[in-house]
């Protein structure tokens, strides 16, 4: 990983300082180079002993400074490159001294140092490659191989062979002269492979590329001039070489120099752009070009080398193809493994099984079996050597899928492992959701069971209470009735009165029990209605009739008005009777002597209205709203007895028939209840609850 830095203010300042330094160095390099180029070649001392070496030294210093300042991983890479530059420096100084002395010969000690630089450069790039884990891409090696073979052929046939064939050259000279192109080829090979497998974006790497290119081109110019123009002005070559050296120094000085040895993470496949394919094709045609040149110049030597080169290139191309196919097949295998994984996940559940499925998939994806699924905290993970994909469930990291970094370098493997991790995360989440749902469902089922049990117990209670209360009442009422019937002996006046009291109260108690149980059933939603087409007028008439004795006792007038053609209502006759009874009884109870009670019925479209009006004591204004509350009794009831359930029952009956009830009252004047009942059931009424057994 590239060294990450916290961006504090001091670091920001540091960055700016680095940028300034680099710009200054760039200006310096440009100035130096321009000076070297512009100064005429007569000034050998200036050029050879001052400017050139100065450039070399500056480059070395720059790279070393860069290493110390930016602390890249595997600093050995840059240091080897610096070593190469130092070697150049020594060689240049030596050569300049020899030139000045006039004893420059070929080969010389300087050549050794020159040649030494190339392996050092190459070595630096090789170290960089290894450090950055870039070795996954076999394709890049093959491409580089093709380039190298072409270059080697070029170097051997067009340059080296000339030296070897030259009788004027000593053996040492021939060897050294041949060595240069070969050293170039070595550097080219390594550079090509390195560059093909990395991204060129960081500026330092671009500068590195250009500088190496300039050095190589400079060398080619040098060799060509040596061979075909025999000596002559090497200014162009020197300028190119100097530029290359300076740029190399600048590359090492730039903050992005750390990218040289940064881990690539994953090898990017060579892009199959048209440009690249065409370039490789052209390069692989070099043997043909060489043969053509040889034919044109009439010097057809070493055909066997050319043929060998063509065979080698062909082999590489085929290998490339096989490699590609292999890659494709592996990609297909990964696909298959992932889709097997996907479908397995759908069918499995439970933590253990899911993890095992993920482990299996990971094993299939990473050859060599180094992939593992590990739980969080179960072992320490060496982050630097392992690729990790986190398994996150409900926002918590519960584990990770890890694999050896090196084995996951092939493109697609890491993505696949991430997919495995994600798949596992989702499956585990789904699992936990299902478990939660199941738990909720279970708890609901339990609650339901409990509620049903409570309901059942309530029913039983109501039933028992009813029985327990009514049984003694039966005796009280029954014996009173028998006494009053005088079949078992006569009663004197007082005895008669007393027994009547007992009887009356027994009835009253019975009515109260009825009311309470009625209300209990309404509460439980257990009120069942036996509906039929009810003549409301008839029902009202019966209730009014029943109330006449009491009304007469209280010196009240009670009357009923109803139209002849009143529509029958689909309702429960018993309940309507109960409703009228309650309202009329109330009216009778609360109207002082001389008062009037009127029951008026009327019919409108689909509705039947009943109005029960009295000239009674009325209800205080603030209490009218609470009239229908259970057990509520107005403050003005005085000595009149009642349970406070009557009106609540009336309201329940009206509501269960989908009707409405309203009351208006004025204290001391009277009270009027108005009820409206629909003739038919509304269309969307749900089925009424049947009473439970």
């Amino acid at each position, binding site marked *: 990983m590239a060294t990450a830095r916290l961006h504090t203010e001091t670091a920001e300042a540091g960055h700016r300082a680095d940028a300034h330094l680099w710009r200054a160095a760039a200006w310096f390099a440009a100035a130096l180079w321009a000076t070297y180029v512009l100064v005429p070649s007569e000034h050998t001392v200036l050029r050879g002993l001052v400017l050139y070496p100065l450039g070399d030294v500056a480059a070395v210093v720059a790279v070393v400074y860069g290493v110390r300042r930016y602390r890249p991983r595997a600093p050995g890479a840059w240091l080897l490159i610096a070593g190469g530059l130092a070697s150049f420096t020594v060689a240049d100084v030596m050569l300049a001294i020899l030139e000045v002395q006039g004893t420059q010969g070929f080969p010389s000690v300087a050549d050794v140092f020159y040649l030494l630089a190339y392996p050092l450069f190459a070595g630096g790039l090789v170290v960089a490659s290894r450090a950055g884990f870039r070795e996954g891409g076999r394709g890049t090696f093959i491409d580089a191989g093709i380039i190298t073979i072409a270059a080697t052929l070029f170097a051997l046939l067009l340059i080296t062979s000339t030296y070897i064939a030259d009788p004027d050259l000593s053996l040492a000279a021939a060897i050294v002269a041949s060595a240069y192109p070969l050293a170039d080829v070595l550097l080219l090979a390594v550079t090509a492979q390195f560059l093909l497998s990395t991204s060129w974006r960081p500026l330092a790497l671009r500068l590195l590329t250009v500088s190496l290119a300039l050095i190589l081109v400079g060398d080619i110019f040098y060799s060509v001039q040596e061979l075909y123009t025999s000596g002559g002005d090497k200014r162009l070559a020197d300028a190119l070489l100097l530029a290359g050296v300076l740029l190399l120094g600048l590359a090492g000085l730039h903050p992005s120099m750390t990218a040289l040895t940064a881990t690539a993470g994953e090898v990017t496949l060579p892009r199959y752009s048209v440009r690249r394919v065409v370039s490789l094709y052209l390069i692989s045609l070099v043997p043909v070009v060489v043969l053509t040149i040889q034919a044109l110049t009439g010097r057809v030597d070493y055909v066997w080398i050319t043929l060998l080169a063509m065979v080698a290139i062909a082999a590489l191309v085929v290998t490339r193809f096989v490699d590609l196919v292999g890659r494709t097949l592996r990609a297909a295998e990964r696909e298959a493994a992932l889709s097997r994984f996907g479908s397995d996940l759908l069918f499995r559940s439970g933590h253990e099984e899911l993890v095992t499925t993920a482990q299996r998939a990971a094993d299939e994806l990473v050859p060599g079996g180094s992939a593992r699924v590990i739980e969080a905290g179960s072992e320490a993970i060496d982050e630097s050597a392992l690729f990790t994909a986190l398994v996150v469930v409900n926002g918590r990291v519960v584990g990770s899928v890890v694999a050896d970094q090196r084995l996951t370098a092939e493109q697609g493997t890491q993505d696949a492992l991430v997919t495995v991790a994600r798949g596992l995360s989702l499956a585990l989440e789904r699992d936990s959701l299902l478990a939660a749902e199941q738990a909720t469902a279970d708890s609901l089922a339990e609650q339901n069971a409990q509620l049903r049990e409570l309901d059942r117990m309530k029913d039983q209670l109501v*039933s028992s209470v009813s*029985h327990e209360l009514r*049984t003694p009442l039966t*005796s009280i009422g029954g014996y009173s*009735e*028998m006494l009053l019937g005088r079949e078992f002996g006569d009663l004197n006046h007082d005895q008669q009165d007393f027994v009547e009291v007992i009887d009356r109260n027994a009835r009253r108690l019975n009515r109260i029990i009825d009311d309470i149980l009625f209300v209990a059933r309404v509460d439980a939603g257990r009120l069942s209605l036996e509906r039929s087409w009810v003549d409301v007028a008839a029902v009202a008439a019966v209730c009014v009739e029943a109330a006449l004795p009491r009304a007469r006792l209280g010196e009240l007038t009670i009357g009923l008005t109803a139209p002849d053609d009143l529509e029958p209502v689909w309702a429960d006759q018993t309940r309507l009777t109960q409703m009228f009874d309650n309202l009329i009884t109330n009216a009778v109870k609360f109207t002082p002597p001389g008062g009037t009670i009127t029951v008026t019925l009327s019919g409108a479209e689909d509705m039947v209205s009943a109005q029960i009006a009295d000239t009674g004591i009325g209800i205080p204004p603030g209490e009218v709203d609470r009239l229908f509350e259970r057990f509520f009794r107005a403050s003005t009831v005085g000595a009149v007895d009642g349970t406070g359930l009557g009106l609540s029952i009336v309201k329940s009956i009206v509501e269960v028939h989908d009707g409405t009830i309203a009351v208006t009252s004025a204290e001391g004047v009277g009270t009027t209840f108005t009820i409206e009942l629909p003739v038919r059931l509304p269309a969307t009424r749900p089925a009424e609850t049947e009473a*439970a057994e």
Partner: protein
Amino acid sequence: MSTEASSPQPVILVADDDEDILHLLTFRLERSGYTVVSARDGEEALRVAREHVPDLAVLDVRMPKLDGYEVTRALRADEATRRMPIILLTAKVQDGDVQRGFDAGADDYVRKPFSPQELRSRVQAILGRR
């Protein structure tokens, strides 16, 4: 004590676990000219019914050992007692219970508290028809 004309007094079985009600019923019916046999629980009721084969049975629905419905069903299942008129007494309020009574095979259903006079009228009505 008045007796019916020439026919022997009809025998009525009365079963209830409450002593007072049992006596109430017995008084009322004996005073009206019937012979009464009584039982305090369902098992006794069934035994007495099979032994005396009464002309009518008045059974409380809630009794220990066997309840009124079960006694009714048992009587209906037995050839000797199949056609015996049965009146069930109960304090139960849910309407479903009435249906349950008739389903078991009862002929009538009287709610508690009841007027003894009214019960006598019903008994007379049923026996009068026979």
